């Protein structure tokens, strides 16, 4: 009886041990699938000096192989006032008033593994403001008569921003590789336009599965003027009278200076 009990106890131990071993093995094999989404923008502090002509920003991190990715880079939202052109008298294009765009970022870039419309449901796009259709619903435009007019002016707004290189929506340029620990690493290198103004930018990476955002991670990019560029921009804003006198003084001196050079160099007429 005692012997039988011992054998049963040993069996139980073996089962427990095996269960534990299997669980550990499964956990070890599945780490890749349950990898925490991470995001890191390298070159996250862009400095603007006299020779600045744009930069590049790369975003990399760990992601789950079973998910698609959307990377969104935005500036803080605010309002923008723009002049709108319209036809006067049926034939002349003139500025016919102003439009106020509220809840709009100055900078809005979206990069995704596939077209965002194909990997995300409309509700998810709207909830996370991913893609131009979602941004169109998020933005308020005044004054407009109806939704149709709002949609038309939003399209013009995107065209205007794309022309300034500060709005874009692209797919298919995120690359993947395995890192040293065998985890999936994603990477994207984006051109940072010189038209993007100084300020703080937010990089949000969304992991997408079954048309839903399942995970997200963020990083930041800061763009700041430095040195003489910073001093001059600050002086124009904070000491406008002195800045005005300086500008006039330099212009007058340059005008006289060149006259003197020509007078000496030119000889008699």
């Amino acid at each position, binding site marked *: 009886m005692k012997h039988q009990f011992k054998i049963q106890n040993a069996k139980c131990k073996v089962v427990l041990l095996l269960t534990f071993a299997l669980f550990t093995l499964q956990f070890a094999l599945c780490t890749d699938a349950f990898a925490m989404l991470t995001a890191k923008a390298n070159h996250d502090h862009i400095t603007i000096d006299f020779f600045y002509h744009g930069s590049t920003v790369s975003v990399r991190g760990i992601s789950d192989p079973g998910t698609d990715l959307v990377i969104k880079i935005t500036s803080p939202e605010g309002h923008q006032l723009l002049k709108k052109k319209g036809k006067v008298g049926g034939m002349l294009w003139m500025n016919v008033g102003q439009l106020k765009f509220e809840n709009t970022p100055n900078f809005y870039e979206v990069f995704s593994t596939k077209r965002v419309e194909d990997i995300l449901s409309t509700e998810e796009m709207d909830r996370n403001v991913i893609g131009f259709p979602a941004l169109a619903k998020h933005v308020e435009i005044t004054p407009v008569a109806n939704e149709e007019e709002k949609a038309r002016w939003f399209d013009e707004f995107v065209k205007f921003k794309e022309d300034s290189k500060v709005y874009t929506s692209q797919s298919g340029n995120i690359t993947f590789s395995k890192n040293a620990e065998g985890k999936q690493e994603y990477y994207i290198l984006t051109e940072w336009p010189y038209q993007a103004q100084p300020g703080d930018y937010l990089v949000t990476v969304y992991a997408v599965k079954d048309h839903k955002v399942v995970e997200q991670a963020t990083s930041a990019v800061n763009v700041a003027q430095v040195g003489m560029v910073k001093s001059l921009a600050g002086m124009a804003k904070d000491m*406008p009278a002195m800045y005005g006198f300086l500008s006039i003084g330099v212009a007058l001196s340059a005008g006289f200076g060149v006259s003197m050079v020509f007078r000496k160099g030119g000889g008699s007429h």
Partner: protein
Amino acid sequence: MYLYLPVALTSINILIPVGLGLAVGLLSGLFGVGGGFLLTPLLIMFGIPSTVAAATDSNQIVAASTSGTYAHWKVGNVDFKMGLYLLGGGFIGGILGVQAIKLLHAMGNADFVIKITYILMLGIVGVYMFIESLQSMKKNNVEEAKEEKESAVGRFLKALPLQTRFEKSGITHSVFVPIVLGAFVGILAAIMGVGGGFLMVPIMVYMLRMPMHVVVGTSLFQILFTCIEVTFLQAYSNHSVDFILAVLLLLGSTVGAQIGAFFGKKLKAEQLKILLASIVLAVTVKIVFEITLTPSLLLSQVGGH
């Protein structure tokens, strides 16, 4: 090589502003115009925000007109007395013009009035100068035509009180004539948002009957003071003068103005007039195309044309 502009918040190839400055400075030295009606739209085309383009343009005109005025003064082509009367009138006109613009904005059709004024003024001035210069080139016909015109206008002008002699220009006018004409240009310049050189030059030539070479120098002298005032006001109230852009522009324009003044002496007055008329007409045609063809972008920054 690219340079970053701290107020315009954009980067530009330095050859662009230096080259544009040189071209506009050349026109400035040749014709006595500031060139704002050409340079501001060009700067906007190269990605400079419209408010910064207009303000910085006036800053560089200070340099170009200093260089041009000096070059013309050295050869005795600046009528300071006439310039000061025109400046006085221009100052009054500027105040009236700013009020007119406020009224137009309140009525909601400012842009329409500005564009039409632009086209009409440029068109009339361009066509008139072009035809007149062509006729002047055929010398025989001109003598009679000129004399007829002078006597008709002359009778009215001589009837006005406070007649004074302008030695440098060799003419006599009532002090009211340059003041009223200066005010007229000042009103239009304020409405159109330009310095008004391309209006002032024909007025001096055809209405005040000043010799063309004195007109160029005197116009530059007047433009210099107008642009000093505008630069200060733009820097002070709108923070829209880009110092670096202005320096790049004036590197070209000060040299251009000297070259212009040099070639101006080589050209005959009629040749100068017909060249200016052609440029003014080309700008008119450009604006007509601009407002009749569908623009690629229907939205623009607040603050420019």
